[in-house]
């Protein structure tokens, strides 16, 4: 019928109705009526950067894997982590999780225990997911100097692309700081060894007991390899700088930990003072306890300024280690033969903030006092050994000079990790390794910069979240930790990890909660294979979807500005 031509007849049951009806009986649907023309603002699905992802030095897609874990998709979660971090079983244990400090949930009840989720997935992957093989063949060769986390990450991502990687390691085993710096109660050697198998599967060659700078030169590597990556870390001890600081019984924290981690029992006296407030100090003190010694920590500022991770400081105190704050060494007391008998300290108070923003310790006059000791462990920072570099490589005050992606001034020579930054974290080293590998591979699109606009707590619609305490992190009792190096944290089980990941707000990233779909009055959110799409033919732009998105993953923009987008 002519009169009906301009309407799209869509009621299948009414197709045979062709006559003009005898009264107002409808024959078609409102699909003809494109209400989208009413719209002034349009909604867009636009994922924002969650603060956890943003803060992660290796750009792990934390929200992404938490979401997969919620759905018990562990294999997918594992693969997603591996895109940015090859060794989640390691970082899940040792990373100081800046992600958790930025987690928006901390302003609601308590941050997600992201590292516990990561650790579960890391362990699950090691057990259940086959090791990756190189995706392609590649004749390019790469020499990596140092097998710590920076070198390991670079080796992994280069290996995946088929690069011929050779790693040079001064020590007898691979792992750098992971093996020799971190005590086994935090990172069992077996976990490290299993993670390292990934590199072997990728065909990486290694030359251990080969000290670059001594046994082989950077120049040699530059001549014989297409690319050289320097990542030998920061291992040089910084002396105390007080009289007698080289007395017998004074040992550097790293050296002390290295001995333990090599299976040796350091021969030091029973009453030990660890000087410093960083993670090495805490590791050293807690290791002492496990060797049956009586450690204490001396730190010149207060707990608030301690660079060590608060959880570790808590654990340290829980294990009964006393931390003496606001004291600084004046002199190491020693016998005439140069054997440590104690230390002379002076009281400090906090003055004005220094360059690091922390309040500077200022000596309190006439406050000196002495304590008796058998040994002193120094953990006041490590330095980079720059002597192995060739003179033409530019340096900074504390390390190798590089650009944002690890390039030195010499073509195809890169430097990453602690040797660039001074002592930093495992995850920062991993991130640097990854980024440099991507740079060499040419996958620069995968190199993500930090945004200054991550999703803020106030961007969320909290009506959709219920309060839920953080899932308690299981650990062995303090008593069970004495005189052994058993891992303290025992990790989440499946039930716990599901519960904890469920707490994730999924800030800024659509996790298919269906709010936009369910609450749209105009049926303009189309669900297709689990994906959402706005139907702009009909969406009137009311903005209910954007307002009710719990996670700020929908943005409203003015129609007139759509082109600019």
């Amino acid at each position, binding site marked *: 019928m002519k009169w*009906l031509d301009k*309407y799209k007849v869509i009621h299948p049951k009414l197709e045979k109705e062709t006559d003009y*009806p005898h009264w*107002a*009986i*409808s*024959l*078609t*649907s*409102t*699909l*003809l*009526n*494109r*209400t989208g023309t*009413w719209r002034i603002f349009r909604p867009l699905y636009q994922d924002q950067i969650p603060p956890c992802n943003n803060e992660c030095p290796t750009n792990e897609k934390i929200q992404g894997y938490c979401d997969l874990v919620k759905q018990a998709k562990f294999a997918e979660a594992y693969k997603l982590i591996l895109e940015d971090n090859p060794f989640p079983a390691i970082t899940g244990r040792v990373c100081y999780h800046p992600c958790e400090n930025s987690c928006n949930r901390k302003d609601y009840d308590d941050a997600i225990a992201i590292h516990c989720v990561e650790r579960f997935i890391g362990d699950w992957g090691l057990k259940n997911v086959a090791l990756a093989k190189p995706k392609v063949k590649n004749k390019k060769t790469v020499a990596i100097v140092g097998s710590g986390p920076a070198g390991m990450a670079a080796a992994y991502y280069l290996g995946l692309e088929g690069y011929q990687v050779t790693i040079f390691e001064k020590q007898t085993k691979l792992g750098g700081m992971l093996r020799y710096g971190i005590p086994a109660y935090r990172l069992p050697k077996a976990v490290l060894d299993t993670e390292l198998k990934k590199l072997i599967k990728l065909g990486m060659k290694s030359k251990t007991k080969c000290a670059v700078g001594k046994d082989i030169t950077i120049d040699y590597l530059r001549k014989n390899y297409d690319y050289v990556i320097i990542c030998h870390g920061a291992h040089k001890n910084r002396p105390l700088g007080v009289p007698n600081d080289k007395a017998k019984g004074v040992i550097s924290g790293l050296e002390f930990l290295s001995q333990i981690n090599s299976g040796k029992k350091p021969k030091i006296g029973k009453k030990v003072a660890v000087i410093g407030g960083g993670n090495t100090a805490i590791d050293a003190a807690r290791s002492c306890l496990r060797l049956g010694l009586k450690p204490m920590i001396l730190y010149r500022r207060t707990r608030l300024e301690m660079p060590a991770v608060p959880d570790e400081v808590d654990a340290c105190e829980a294990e009964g280690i006393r931390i003496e704050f606001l004291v600084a060494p004046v002199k190491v007391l020693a016998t005439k033969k140069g054997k440590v008998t104690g230390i002379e300290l002076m009281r400090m108070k906090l003055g004005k903030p220094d360059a690091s923003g922390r309040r500077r310790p200022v000596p309190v006059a006439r406050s000196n006092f002495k304590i008796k000791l058998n040994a002193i462990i120094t953990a006041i920072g490590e330095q980079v050994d720059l002597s192995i570099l060739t003179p033409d490589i530019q340096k900074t005050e504390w390390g190798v000079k590089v650009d944002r992606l690890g390039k030195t001034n010499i073509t195809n020579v890169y430097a990453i990790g602690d040797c660039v930054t001074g002592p930093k974290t495992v995850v920062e080293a991993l991130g640097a390794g990854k980024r440099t590998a991507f740079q060499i591979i040419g996958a620069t699109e995968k190199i993500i910069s930090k945004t200054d606009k991550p999703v803020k707590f106030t961007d969320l619609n909290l*009506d*959709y*979240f*219920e309060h839920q305490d953080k899932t308690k992190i299981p650990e062995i009792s303090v008593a069970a930790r004495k005189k052994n190096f058993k891992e303290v944290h025992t990790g989440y089980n499946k039930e716990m990890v599901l519960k904890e990941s469920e707490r994730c707000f999924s800030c800024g990233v659509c996790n*298919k*909660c*269906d*709010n936009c*779909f*369910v*609450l*749209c*009055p*105009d*049926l*303009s959110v189309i*669900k297709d294979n689990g994906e959402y799409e706005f*139907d702009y*033919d*009909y969406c*009137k*732009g*009311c*903005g*209910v979807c*954007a*307002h*009710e998105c719990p996670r700020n993953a929908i943005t*409203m923009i003015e129609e007139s500005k759509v082109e600019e987008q």
Partner: protein
Amino acid sequence: MRWTIKEKELMYPGHVACPGCGGALAMRLALKALGEKTIVVLPACCWTIIDGPFPMHSLHVPVLHTAFETAAIAATGVKAGLDVRGKKDITVMAWAGDGGTLDIGIQALSGAAERNDDIIYTCYDNEAYMNTGIQRSSATPKGAWTTTTPQQTPKLEPKKNITEIMIAHRIPYVATATLAYPEDLINKYKKAQSIKGTKFLHVYAPCPTGWKMAPDLMIKICRLAVESNIFPIYECENGINYTVNIQPQKKLPVFEYLKLQGRFSHLTQKDIDEIQKSVDFERQLLLKRAAKS
């Protein structure tokens, strides 16, 4: 939180509700609950327009448009006809606005309820005659602006309590629901569908246009209405057994609800205090009833 709401739609886009219309969403959700074996009866109300002009129609189910005051009896008539034809498995739902329910349609509604006719009656309540351009109805709350209760003399009388009026009919099922709690709403429709007799659902359905409110706040205002106890979510079976379905987590002051709507912008602190007082009183009354049953 993930919804367990089915995806199948029984409504088309292209309907002509204002942006952010609570009534449109309410229909969409109600039909998801009731399914396609449903016939809807629409008296004069916003939905007369929303459904679309002839020859268009925005629902996948048959709709009978009828006169303003006849929603309940038209539904009864349809149900009777279907029963006679042996089609007993079809749900007939009357879907009327607050004017069509509390004012002009209350007689037919009361009649249907007294006879316990086997229909679902929905009052989608946007608290005024919105379709005609925001005139006061007996569902308009005290203190609200409408075009017939201008700011100088806002509505002086409290809202008629239609839910309690219907409960007093001792029909098998009376419930309130709103859009911020879509699962509750859907469950209530499913429950209503499973019960024989007259079922009355009072659905609080915001009208951003008439409430002088940003349309994107449509769901939020529903939530605030519940959390501030302005619109309690409860049900009552057989006129006796009360259940409060949603217990507000925090006792939100009514101000938080009122302040988002231009229709209340003229209220003084004294007015707000009075509203708070009456809301508190009603809340206690409801809790007492719920406790007794």
